[in-house]
């Protein structure tokens, strides 16, 4: 699969407003996205994700490094690069609320230089796909949040670009609409061969939709793996132990030392092992005070846990 988006060693620093101190937001981020791929771009707040997104979208010039979209440099060949990417950066805020659905679509497409005739054909096709045909003349202001979100994606689709970047596409949506949006994105990638880059904090969306994930933390890429591979990598070593009694301070101290990645919830302990044999060490800790164990299960790890672990490990290192 040839790459359509190439982010090559981008660095960006800002000066803090008050202290004038230099703050490095992105410290050499590099990755590639292939044609037709659905990729999740993740990272905790302040990780450098927004700076990376802005640079990909040609809204920010990096201090070092480059971004190319379909071979066009996002700074030197800005307009050509932008001809291959569209984005929904602020969801429903990317729309004109005083215009109706049709007017919004016509305005944004026209602004990209799309001729009137072409807009008409595309609009009808997309309104059907997004099930917004009967809302064509409705003011955006009167639409539900979910419909506004769908319209924002629809507007981005109208540009008919190879790459679509979506920032938090399911934020604030109810379960049903969130699912609908997810299915739409899947359809777009599968049937129309579009490359979809999703930036989100909604981990089930990543697990369900993305083939690959790029995790950014502290301005660096800390993981760039297929989602299923990451899940496999972590699933073998995660266990959930339900205890009948609390551990003693001494036991907790040893636990902290030997298994820094763990989580408590009442008497429920979730712990990750580097290797399968570590389970015997854990048993040793319980054995020390004859702590009664109710159940012990290998956990079905989800992507949220993988993400937290990766970020936590990165911070610890």
């Amino acid at each position: 699969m040839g790459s359509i988006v190439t982010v090559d060693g981008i660095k960006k620093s800002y000066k803090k407003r008050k202290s004038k101190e230099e703050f490095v937001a992105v410290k050499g981020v590099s990755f590639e996205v292939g044609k037709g791929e659905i990729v999740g771009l993740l990272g905790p707040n302040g990780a450098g994700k927004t700076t990376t997104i802005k640079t990909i979208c040609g809204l920010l010039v990096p201090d070092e490094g480059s971004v190319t979209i379909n071979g066009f440099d996002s700074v030197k060949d800005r307009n050509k690069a932008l001809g291959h990417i569209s984005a929904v950066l602020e969801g429903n805020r990317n729309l004109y609320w005083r215009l109706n659905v049709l007017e919004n679509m016509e305005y944004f497409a026209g602004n990209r230089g799309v001729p009137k005739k072409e807009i008409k054909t595309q609009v009808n096709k997309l309104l059907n796909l997004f099930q917004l045909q009967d809302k064509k003349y409705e003011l955006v202001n009167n639409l539900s949040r979910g419909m506004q979100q769908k319209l924002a994606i629809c507007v981005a689709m109208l540009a008919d670009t190879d790459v679509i970047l979506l920032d938090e596409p399911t934020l604030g949506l109810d379960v049903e609409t969130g699912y609908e949006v997810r299915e739409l994105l899947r359809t777009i990638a599968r049937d129309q061969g579009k490359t979809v880059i999703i930036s989100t904090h909604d981990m089930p969306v990543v697990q369900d939709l993305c083939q690959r994930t790029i995790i950014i933390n502290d301005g660096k890429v800390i993981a760039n793996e297929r989602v299923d591979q990451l899940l496999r990598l972590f699933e073998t070593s995660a266990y959930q132990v339900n205890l009948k009694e609390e551990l003693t301070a001494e036991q907790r101290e040893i636990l902290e030392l030997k298994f820094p990645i763990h989580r408590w919830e009442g008497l429920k302990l979730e712990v990750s092992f580097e290797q399968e044999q570590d389970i015997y060490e854990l048993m040793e800790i319980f054995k020390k005070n004859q702590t009664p164990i109710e159940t012990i299960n290998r956990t079905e790890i989800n992507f949220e846990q993988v993400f937290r672990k990766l970020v936590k490990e990165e911070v610890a290192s």
Partner: protein
Amino acid sequence: MTSFWNVLRVNTKMEFLELVRYKANTISLLLTFYIIFIAMMFGIQVIGDPAQAGTNTQFVIVNYIFWYFAMMVLQSIGWTISDEAMKGTLEQLFMSPVSPWKIFLSRMFGMIFNHFVLVIFLLFVSMATAGQWLNLNPFAIIPILLLTLASMIGVSFVIAGMALIFKQISAFLQILQFIIAGLTFVPLSVAPFMVAAPFVKGVDMTRQVMINGYTLADFTMVDYAWLIGNSIVYGIIGVGIYLACEKYAMKKGLLGHY
């Protein structure tokens, strides 16, 4: 060219829709300007020379129409940028493969086209109210007006550049109204040094056409040199400053609210 035509088409429609959707705002704008005109007209009748009452009123009408028009043009992109940054749509405009300055230029053309209709309406209402009919010679007015517009658009781009960096420029836009009033109301015969100021020469020449019945042949080569020079210099400098501001904003990450 086809792309620019499409951009121009949708932006003209957008400006029209804004006027229609914000009907109350459009009506109150026209009413406010009409009330200002009435105040100006009575003001000049009270303090002006009674022997020159007719000419003075005509002077007020031309200045007032230009004041309205210059305000709309000069504030146009600055206000658009500030407003779109707040709404969250600015980044979308900057993500178009058509350069943003071309989008803003077409938005301004759209605004000029729509507001020109309002200006004509205001002009006739004010002439009817004052009972003073100006010489509306389109063959003389349109060429001068187009060149004057180039100068106004240049200044508008400077304000747009500022809006891109500072976003909140509403206080400045309010002060700008008085600066524009100074530029449109003071005749060159009183302050000849203002000939180098943006669009002043154009306003002065239009005044000569509308009040004194000048035709294009009545102006000297020096008049044209100032008019054309003014338009080219301010037009180019304006767009240049805007592009520099855009570059700075992209370097510093100041685009939009995002």
